[in-house]
């Protein structure tokens, strides 16, 4: 009996915690299917006739000088995918090098990646703005790809090295005795074994680029704006367009939630790797 009461208490507490974390985004999702009238209703409308008007609105009108299908969405997808691919390619090499070779300066290089991970991006935006202006890359997607890649590399190297360390070195050596080259070892042995680790690093890199607001705010204008910046387009002189704003929020949220649902176990592993043994 006492045991049953304890279980019930745990259940209620867990439910409260989950509602606290899940309800706010869920409320945004609900609001995106409401008309402006239903959004502004007080007390808040629990039951309403769902409408796709907000989605039609963001997909058919220009907001903040750009179309979602021709500007914001393609920009976000291209930039996030390109920087993720570049991040994983160079980080895999670096992580392999740091994991497998003992060489002078190895510790210093590891240290370098650790320190750069702590640099606050907000402090970099102004010099990055000047830098990109000087080399003629301001307002280009290329600029965003390079910046996101540079920001993602430290974490990716750190995580991938952790995963590669779990593969015994003897396996490399055995493969090389059998006539496999170093490059062959990376692609045929390491990549398949640390596949989930690579996927998690890729997901984290993608999410950082996809979610970023600060850097894109400084480095882009009209044609190169990414999706998160579209949020600011709904604050106009005629008022705040809550409906389309929440619908845009759902579009930004969707891939992130999908990634989280399908890779939660590996994500937790990737996050806590190195901190918990």
């Amino acid at each position: 009996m006492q045991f049953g009461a304890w279980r019930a208490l745990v259940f209620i507490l867990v439910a409260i915690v989950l509602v606290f974390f899940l309800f706010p985004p869920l409320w945004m999702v609900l609001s995106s299917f409401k008309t402006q009238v239903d959004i502004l209703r007080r007390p808040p409308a629990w039951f309403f006739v769902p409408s796709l008007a907000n989605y039609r609105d963001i997909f058919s009108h220009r907001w903040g000088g750009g179309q979602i299908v021709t500007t914001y969405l393609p920009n976000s997808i291209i930039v996030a995918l390109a920087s993720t691919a570049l991040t994983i390619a160079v980080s895999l090499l670096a992580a392999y090098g740091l994991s497998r070779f003992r060489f002078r300066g190895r510790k210093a290089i590891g240290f370098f990646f650790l320190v750069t991970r702590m640099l606050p991006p907000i402090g970099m935006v102004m010099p990055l703005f000047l830098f990109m202006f000087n080399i003629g890359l301001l307002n280009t997607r290329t600029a965003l790809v390079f910046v996101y890649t540079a920001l993602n590399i430290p974490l990716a190297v750190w995580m991938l090295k952790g995963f590669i360390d779990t593969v015994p070195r003897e396996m490399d050596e055995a493969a090389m005795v059998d006539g496999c080259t170093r490059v062959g070892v990376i692609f045929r042995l390491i990549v398949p074994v640390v596949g989930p680790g690579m996927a998690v690093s890729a997901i984290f890199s993608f999410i950082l680029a996809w979610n970023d607001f600060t850097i894109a705010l400084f480095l882009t204008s009209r044609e190169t704006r990414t999706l998160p910046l579209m949020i600011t387009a709904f604050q106009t002189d005629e008022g705040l367009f809550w409906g389309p704003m929440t619908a845009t929020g759902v579009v930004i949220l969707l891939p992130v939630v999908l990634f989280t649902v399908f890779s939660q176990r590996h994500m937790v592993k990737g996050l806590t790797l190195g901190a918990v043994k």
Partner: protein
Amino acid sequence: MRRRLKAIAPYIYTLPAAALVLGVLMYAWGQSFILSFTQYRPMMGIGPKFTGIQNYVTLLNQPLFRKAIWVSFVFTGISVLLECVFGMLIALLLMQVTRGLAFIRTSLLIPLMIAPALAGLIWKLFFNAEFGFLNYFLGLFGVPGQLWLSSEALVLPSIILVDIWRETPFVAIFMYAGLQALPNDPFEAARIDGATAWQAWRYITIPLLRPLLGIVVLFRVIFALRVFDTAFVLAREGGPGQNAMVLGMYLYERTYKTFDLGLASAVSFIILALTLVFGAVFITFIYREVEF
């Protein structure tokens, strides 16, 4: 020839990654460092002209900048403290859970993975004084409606609440992983010696988790000091009475309102310096713990 190639091979592996980080981030910081000692206002055709530590002196004499430092410290201190307390409690609660862990893990990860700017938007909808959900919810308990983001007193607590919502799961996930990795023996021994649950927690769990807790706290501090996106969406220009003017917001205001790039660089460097002070502790911690 082959031998020489073998000696430089390890460097070749790390070169592309290091070059990208150096080329973009370090270049930016280097330039920022130099500019912070100059007067540079390109829109007015001034500079860059070397002025020594003038920018830093100007900043420290400016009441709004001093306020921004204070606001950032309050924001960081309160959010990190509450995130750690709630995160630890949630982790302890999860240790009692046997089923549905995958769902719980997903639910905890979602706030953490949501774009900070989007978290701002979600809560803006919540905080709205007229039709927001929060006032309605508090009203059910008889609490009068608040102005939240339009209130001088509540604007900073409001953005702290959003940060707690977003980052508590980070602490909870780490603490839960730490709790699971704890050895069983000391608890067994304590049980035999008749220790209460509180005593076991206070004298076994906490000391064993201290290194991990240290890493989590410093991590959170470093990230709380740089907060910008959420503040930008929720409290533009620092909110009412500029009471939510965090350092990141101040930097944005300086850069975009006055285009005083020398001064903005100096602000960047002060944020970096604060980060590095905490980061130095962080690195000595993690560097000893994890062999890189």
